[in-house]
């Protein structure tokens, strides 16, 4: 039977963020879904966001958010793995335990974190590895995100290294496991534990209690979360309450099966030929998103239009962002902000021009990092089964009137 016959079936939409806006499945990667509306119900400490689930909460930022270098806390996306999240944490009694292969098992309270360790701040992009997953065809497994499973914040906290030092790692410790307060419904279900290889520990990895000058919102991991700049957010454990040092890597579903890509040059595979050898998704691809205008915006002919957006990569730094208004033939440099937020932060960009003809106009943006890595066209992005690491050239289409 022909594949497309199947897609003639009616697709019933359900829920506040339903899938299935495209009825024909293409063989090549497309642009992520871009027409989803925010829910009419706001979650705690959040403005209304695109809502995929309430249990666990899965919320996406709308495109309009991506015009400034920092993402406001109440517009910041949310992704939990376990449905049972504590709805109250007492900051006066909360502490994090450090155990396993340590000289002494310790508990460190929030107050101690804030007073007995060197306080550090850094700005870093937090992005889900499956951001823009809707671009992949055939549909890859996982939440069907549009472009908004990402944000950038100024995080304040203490170095993980310093906290580990206080407990004193034993010589044979090689892996550090992180566990948060979220739980599954059944007690037999393993927690969402992630691990870091000790040799990857560096000064930029912090335990943060503050986000953009405020306490972390509950849904972003109050009162404490792990920040690992430059890598996708699968290990940025929220409501972190335990750190365990081990000699061997633990056998964990979320490490061995989830958040992995083919271990080959193109990090790609086909549905018929899945690659057996896999690796963690880790370093973020260079990427950029247009926050304004959005598709469908009406702009005046010959009046000045200022395109705004953000660009980032895994920490090499953004070299340039280019804009095309002719379908990707000619590219012109956008203006970048001063980059003072550091190499792990968004670079906000602007590009001003005057549309010359009425009708539909497509605006594209493309970032290149200091390593020379640049974004491919959406159609040239290769498929992987989890729909990870999409970084196709972004585009919006406005109407010039």
């Amino acid at each position, binding site marked *: 039977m022909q594949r497309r016959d199947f897609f003639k*079936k009616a697709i019933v939409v*359900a829920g506040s963020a339903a899938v*299935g806006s495209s009825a024909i499945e293409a063989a090549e990667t497309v642009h992520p879904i871009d027409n989803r509306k925010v829910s009419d*119900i706001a979650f705690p400490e959040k403005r209304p966001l695109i809502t995929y689930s309430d249990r666990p909460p*899965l919320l996406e930022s709308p495109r309009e958010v991506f015009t400034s270098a920092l993402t406001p806390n109440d517009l910041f996306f949310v992704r939990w793995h376990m449905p049972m999240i504590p709805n109250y944490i007492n900051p006066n009694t909360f502490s994090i335990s450090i155990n396993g292969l340590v000289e002494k098992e310790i508990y460190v309270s929030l107050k101690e974190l804030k007073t007995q360790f060197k306080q550090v701040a850094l700005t870093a992009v937090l992005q889900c590895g499956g951001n823009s997953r809707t671009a992949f065809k055939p549909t890859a*497994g996982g939440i069907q995100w549009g472009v908004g499973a990402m944000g950038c914040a100024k995080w304040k906290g203490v170095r993980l290294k310093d906290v580990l030092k206080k407990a004193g790692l034993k010589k044979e410790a090689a892996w550090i496991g992180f566990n948060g307060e979220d739980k599954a419904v059944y007690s037999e279900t393993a927690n969402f534990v992630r691990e870091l290889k000790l040799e990857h520990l560096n000064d930029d990895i912090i335990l943060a209690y503050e986000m953009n000058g405020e306490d972390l919102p509950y849904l972003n991991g*109050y009162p404490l979360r792990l920040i690992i700049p430059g890598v996708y957010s699968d290990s940025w454990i929220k409501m972190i309450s335990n750190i365990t040092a081990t000699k061997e890597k633990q056998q964990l579903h979320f490490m061995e099966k989830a958040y992995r890509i083919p271990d080959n040059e193109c990090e790609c595979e086909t549905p018929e030929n899945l690659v057996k050898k896999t690796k963690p998704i880790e370093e973020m691809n260079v990427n950029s998103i247009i926050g304004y205008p959005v598709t469908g915006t009406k702009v005046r002919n010959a009046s000045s239009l200022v395109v705004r957006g953000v660009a980032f990569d895994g920490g090499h730094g953004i070299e340039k962002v280019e804009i095309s208004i002719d379908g990707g033939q000619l590219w012109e440099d956008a203006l970048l902000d001063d980059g003072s937020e550091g190499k792990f932060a968004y670079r906000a960009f602007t590009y001003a021009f005057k549309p010359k003809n009425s009708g539909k106009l497509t605006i594209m943006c493309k970032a290149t990092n200091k390593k020379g890595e640049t974004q491919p066209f959406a159609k040239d992005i290769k498929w992987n089964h989890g729909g990870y690491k999409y970084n196709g050239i972004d585009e919006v289409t406005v109407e010039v009137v």
Partner: protein
Amino acid sequence: MKKLLLIVLLMSTTLFAQVEGGITVPYIDFPMKEGKGMYSTRGKCNMCHSWGYTLNQGLQSKKFWYDKVMKMIVVFKAPIKTQKDIDTVVNYLFENYGNGELE
């Protein structure tokens, strides 16, 4: 640029936004498609997570849904005990949230 600067400046002052007494996550209704096995599937899946988590996986193959159900049983200890129950859930998912492909 000025606007950006203003936002950054505003954010650098410390605010204490923590909510008193915790939060309540709202209930959101994600309606299930009517179909054979809907009630059984609801009972087995939705006790642990919202239907939104399921339907927002996108339209998928029968193998995808079978693998997901098995993952829920093996990894997440979902109480789906018999082969008949597995078939009921997989068939409901594929008939209502399928892409027409077996594999």
